[in-house]
């Protein structure tokens, strides 16, 4: 079967190769938007095809909080700062859903690609570092927004009113999802097993979210805990959204925005740096 190639055949092969190389080089001159779109679509389909697990289940869990806290505590608390407790609760719970699902989506998806070896397929592709980040982050934001929107909508059906400033609410939600999707990517890149992925939600995100005023106003806390709470960045996010949804907040809403924008830039820079150096991915 071994074939010795004569000069004429070799010349023909060379020519065919040169033609193809030229075509590829020309094509590589265009920005590969379709490549980035493909990664986004893949990531979207990954969670969408399992939507019972990835969408429905978190929505139901969060709504259970709404029922339990809203109706049991709501009866006693009535209102906080003039906001009915049931309305007060909506931004907190929407935030809870958005934060945990944005983080879960990007961290889980990237990490499982690493474990199953399919990340290699992405790493050999011509996608830029930014495009890889975009694909994972945009799909995670989409999932978080679907969940957040569902919680918001169902809460409204159950009698809550949280429509003070819809565009600002959406902005706060998208930025929050962005921050936690980026954090998820960082954790997935650094993680060596599933335990590492669960460490951050269990010991950082969940406690900070619950202590960040999801269910209460920090004004209700005794000293020094009201002051300590102010070091929790999630407090600013929850309150920023609470302002956008109800018009009331423990801290000025712009502080939440500043916090989100700053964290987006910092975490985004870290993700790009990790992807560029190939740390733990291209060893």
């Amino acid at each position, binding site marked *: *079967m*071994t*074939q010795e*190639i004569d*000069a004429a*055949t*070799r010349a023909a*092969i*060379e*020519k*065919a*190769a*040169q*033609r*193809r*190389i030229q075509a*590829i*080089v020309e*094509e*590589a001159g265009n920005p*590969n938007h*379709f*490549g980035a*779109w*493909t*990664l986004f*679509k*893949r990531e979207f*389909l*990954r969670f969408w*095809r*399992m939507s019972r697990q990835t969408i429905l289940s978190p929505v139901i869990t969060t709504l259970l909080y709404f029922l339990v806290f809203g109706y049991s505590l709501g009866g006693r608390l009535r209102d906080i700062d003039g906001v009915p407790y049931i309305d007060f609760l909506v931004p907190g719970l929407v935030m809870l859903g958005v934060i945990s699902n944005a983080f879960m989506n990007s961290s889980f998806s990237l990490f499982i690609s690493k474990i*199953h*070896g*399919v990340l*290699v*397929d*992405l*790493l*050999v*592709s*011509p*996608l*830029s570092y930014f495009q890889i980040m975009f694909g994972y982050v945009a799909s995670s934001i989409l999932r978080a927004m679907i969940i957040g929107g569902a919680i918001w909508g169902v809460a409204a059906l159950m009698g809550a009113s949280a429509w003070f400033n819809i565009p600002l609410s959406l902005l706060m939600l998208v930025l929050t999802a962005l921050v936690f999707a980026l954090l998820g990517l960082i954790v997935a890149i650094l993680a060596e097993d599933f335990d590492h992925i669960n460490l951050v939600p269990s010991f950082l995100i969940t406690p900070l979210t619950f202590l960040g005023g999801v269910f209460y106003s920090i004004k209700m806390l005794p000293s020094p805990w009201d002051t300590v709470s102010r070091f929790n960045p999630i407090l600013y996010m929850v309150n920023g959204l609470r302002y956008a949804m109800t018009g009331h907040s423990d801290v000025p809403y712009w502080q939440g925005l500043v916090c989100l924008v700053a964290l987006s830039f910092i975490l985004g820079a870290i993700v790009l740096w990790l992807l560029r*150096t*190939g740390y733990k991915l*291209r*060893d």
Partner: protein
Amino acid sequence: MSTASKKAPLLHARGVTKRYKSLTAVDHVDLDIETGEIFALLGPNGAGKTTFIGCVAGLVAGFGGSISIAGFDVVRDYQVTRRLIGLVPQELNQDVFFNVRDVVAIQGGYFGVRPDDPRIDALLESFSLGDKRDANTRWLSGGMKRRLMICKALVHDPVLLFLDEPTAGVDVELREELWEYVLNLRARGTTIVLTTHYLEEAERLADRIGILHKGRLRRVDSRADLLESFGRSVIEVALSSPMTTPTREKLRALPGVLDATDLSVTIDALVGDANAILEVIIASSARIDTVRTHRSSLEEIFRDIITQEDAMDASHKEADAEGEGRA
């Protein structure tokens, strides 16, 4: 080769070095691969083959030296070089969330290939995956997973294809099919670099062979030259009646006699004078049963080179140690 070597090589690697803490996985590798060649990179496990390929394909960052494909640097111009390259990795992988066709379409999509491109279905057909297109990749057999990985590597029509142990754990049928496919790919201008444990594969396909050992490229030669310069032609003489000890001693003293036992004599055909040796046997009481000639296979040559290189490494180490001792 003489005409091709004047042109710029398709792959041009100089001083490629990758270190992991104390281990140097790839050590100053210089390698040129010409357009349209089939190049086999051979070496024992852990020789650095996969790491070297990883440096070229973008799976290994932070290496020293430089690598270019068709004049484009694999680090600086990665968006061009990764389109030029296709890689079938050694490790089987599976995307459990998607079916076979989706997986190939997604991979193509990263390179700008549209999901309705007829190339996708044509590839699946060529690798007998047409009837599995809707199956989840989780349920594929090992051989089918390997086929799927080959489809993924080819979907963007690369000009430089790396096959890292493509036939490991694959049945004979696929092996033959793949070899034929490789030759067809080359005919339309694809350059192929393969690593393999089946030396038969390299012997049948490769135009040139590089031997990598402990991270260093020890030999690069055309298959024919490698077989000629390292290959031995051996004559094995089997006897029907045993030789006497003096005859055996006499034979052993002759140049080119590799071994002489009671009932057999092994002769290096290039070194030994076969006539003289056979005459000694005939003159003795022993009777010749059969005479067979045997050319050493690439496998034997490969083993010889590795053993030689190990011996050289050891003597260098000794010399270094002595030098240090004196200092």
